[in-house]
């Protein structure tokens, strides 16, 4: 049987950059293909070429044993290819049924709500999607919304589904359910391209993997025959082990951050002490109070009860600015809205919270000359890859955007740091960079609260690990011979 999809010798250049350099890729019906690669490796370009969003310079695409020449996504959709984007193409104020009906081919002018709802119910049952046709999108979790997208693809008879980083916004249980749905689709004969950074998921669900590196095919393998380390090495061209902190390599400093019975909306009675040179890893399933804790510490969320001390200062009611002066740095999870002004330049973003201090300015005036020099230094020091300090931040890759945030927050030599999902959406190389920065800061004697849903990172850099569940700390353990079962129990909210 010919493959469902065959891409042969795809070349696509942007100026002098060969984003896709002679790439071959095939997908069979009933197969899940993992497409791996660091940010900028050419995965997105390849998929955009397939989906009709970018014309290739050369190369052939065959789909369902016929040449495919998609000039726009609509051509690709019509041919039977569905791309499920990281940000969903759904109207939040409408129901599942209405979203499916939108632009539904055929069916006439008058909407057949009931008939479509019945279709949805059947397909939902068949693929284990568990969707209510009458539910409003705004009331659904991200995982459910993703399923609506999958459902849309299925109902439009897509034979090939492209899932672009589908697990990055999901809670662990939702990830498991998604992987099950993918297996269900596979058994129904659909082909799937699964784009992901997360090696465990790839190894879990894929049949085969294709790895891209710097626009070239770096390798291809059956999942059964490859180890995680080999895969990681294929992706980055070198081995990137997780860093590991060891105890006793330096002396603990003074008390830097002290939290007593801190309560706020969604947060109840959080208590911990943190000394300089110590990293407290906060693990837990997303949505269990991590955001609330980070915001309460940063001064973005009103505190209803409890005390926060930064160094010797009572910061409980202190403003965001006052906390910065007390030595607190904040790396928010929502990089694009809370941490950066995407439409402004790298320089603007670097001075955003420090514009009233030298070298960026004085209380009244900006001093661009010294400021720009400083920004150039930071770009070099933190390896921010942008054409210049005047480049608009929104056009940088996710990894480089995060480096801008890190450069701004950490270059202030903070004594206390709150980092929330600091590696979200970053590839292994960029993730390693962030973790190394945390460790360097620890070495310099800062106290760090590292909040992440990636347990692996927590285990790698923490001195102590706390687990959050239901807005409270379910348990704390030193990062020494950690009992993972215990951590799992805490995460699930059971105090064992």
């Amino acid at each position, binding site marked *: 049987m010919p493959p469902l999809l065959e891409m042969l010798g795809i070349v696509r250049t942007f100026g002098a950059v060969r984003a896709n350099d002679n790439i071959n890729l095939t997908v069979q019906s009933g197969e899940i293909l993992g497409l791996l690669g660091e940010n900028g490796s050419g995965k997105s370009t390849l998929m955009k070429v397939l989906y009709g969003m970018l014309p290739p310079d050369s190369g052939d695409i065959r789909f369902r044993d016929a040449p495919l020449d998609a000039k726009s*996504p*609509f051509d690709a*959709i019509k041919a039977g290819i569905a791309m499920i984007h990281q940000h969903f*193409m*759904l*109207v*939040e*104020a*409408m129901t599942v049924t*209405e*979203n499916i*009906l*939108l*632009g*539904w081919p055929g*069916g*006439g*002018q*008058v*909407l057949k*709500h009931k008939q479509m709802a019945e279709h949805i119910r059947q397909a939902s049952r068949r693929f284990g999607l568990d969707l209510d046709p009458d539910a409003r999108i*705004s009331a659904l979790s991200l995982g459910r919304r993703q399923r609506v997208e999958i459902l849309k693809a299925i109902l439009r008879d897509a034979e090939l589904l492209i899932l672009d980083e589908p697990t990055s916004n999901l809670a662990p249980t939702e990830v498991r359910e998604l992987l099950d749905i993918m297996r269900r689709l596979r058994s129904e004969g659909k082909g799937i391209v699964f784009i992901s950074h997360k090696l465990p998921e790839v190894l879990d669900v894929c049949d085969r993997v294709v790895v891209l590196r710097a626009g070239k095919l770096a390798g291809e393998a059956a999942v059964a025959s490859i180890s995680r380390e080999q895969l990681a090495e294929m992706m980055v061209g070198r081995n990137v082990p997780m860093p590991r902190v060891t105890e006793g390599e330096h002396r603990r400093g003074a008390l830097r951050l002290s939290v007593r019975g801190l309560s706020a909306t969604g947060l109840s009675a959080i208590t911990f002490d943190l000394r300089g040179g110590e990293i407290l890893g906060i693990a837990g399933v997303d949505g269990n109070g991590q955001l609330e804790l980070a915001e309460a510490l940063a001064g973005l969320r009103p505190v209803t009860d409890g005390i926060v001390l930064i160094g010797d200062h009572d910061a409980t009611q202190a403003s965001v600015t006052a906390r910065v002066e007390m030595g607190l740095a904040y790396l928010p999870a929502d990089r694009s809205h809370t941490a950066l002004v995407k439409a402004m330049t790298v320089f603007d973003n670097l001075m955003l919270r420090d514009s009233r201090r030298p070298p960026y300015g004085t209380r009244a005036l900006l001093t661009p000359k010294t400021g720009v020099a400083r920004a150039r230094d930071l770009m070099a020091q933190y390896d921010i890859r942008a054409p210049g300090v005047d480049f608009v931040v929104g056009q940088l890759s996710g990894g480089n955007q995060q480096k801008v945030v890190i450069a701004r927050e950490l270059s202030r030599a903070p004594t206390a740091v709150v980092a929330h999902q600091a590696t979200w959406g970053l590839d292994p190389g960029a993730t390693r960079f962030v973790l190394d920065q945390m460790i360097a800061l620890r070495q310099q004697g800062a106290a760090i609260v590292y909040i992440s849903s990636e347990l692996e990172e927590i285990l790698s850099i923490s001195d102590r690990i706390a687990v959050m569940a239901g807005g409270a700390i379910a348990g704390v353990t030193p990062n020494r011979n950690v009992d993972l079962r215990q951590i799992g129990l805490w995460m699930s909210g059971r105090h064992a």
Partner: protein
Amino acid sequence: MIEFLAASIRIATPILLAALGGILSERAGVFAVGLEGMMLVGAFGATIGTWASDSAYAGLVLALVGGAAMGLVVSVVAVRFRADNMVTGLAANIVALGLTSYLMRIIASSGAPIAIHNTLLPVLPIPGLVDIPEIGPLLFAHPPLTYLTLILCIALTFLLNRTQIGLTLRATGENPEVVYASGLNPLLVRMLAVIACGAVAGLGGAVLSMQQVGTFTDSMTSGRGYLALAALIVGRWTPWGAAAACLVFGAAEAFELRLQGFGVPVSSYVVQMVPYLIGLAVLAGLGRNSRMPAAIGLPLHRDR
């Protein structure tokens, strides 16, 4: 009492028509600030069309065309060229005021009678129903455009909720990117919605000049377009909600007229503020509420 309610309906009709047009525009994601100007051009077109051809149909057609032309201007500037909705709408209102007044002067100076007087559209009692005591004369003895308003209210509700066109229009007001991703053209949807808005609001103007006054005077809409804007917000962007709001506004104005008649010492200016105060209160209570089309006033993405 019947008289008072009938007056409320009479006052509410032109405002409701404009509000229905505004719903089309706003549900597609374009603030309908230009309703006032669209009404005014509609009122002008209706008067001139009727006067020049001696046919009410020509008046109606010219009202529709005039309103739609205003809609076209607004849609090109605000949708195609992504100008700010508020500024565009206000500018359109000012242009409409100047243009209609100027054209009236030209017609007057070209030897035509200074004052145009058209016969008002006649009341069409619905046989049988009009004889029901009390509510018969109230509900079933109106001029034709009033019935048309009711029909449009029903039709628009159906269009929005039960047809592909309506679904696409609502989705364009909520999230045009999704519409684009579905293979449809949000730019076209918005432009057509604003043009249709102009046509319906123009009809609202025609109600004033053909059914109630019989001629065109400068600035004869005197804020009814803005009242329509308030009504569609108070009515939460639904035809029936807007109808209810318009009736309340109509009742407020009818009440005011009565007060004046009885010589009650309440300034008419105060009473005239009432509908707007209701509108402001509802707006404040609503905030940027989820019922408001999520993408209203936001320009379409450059490459879409």
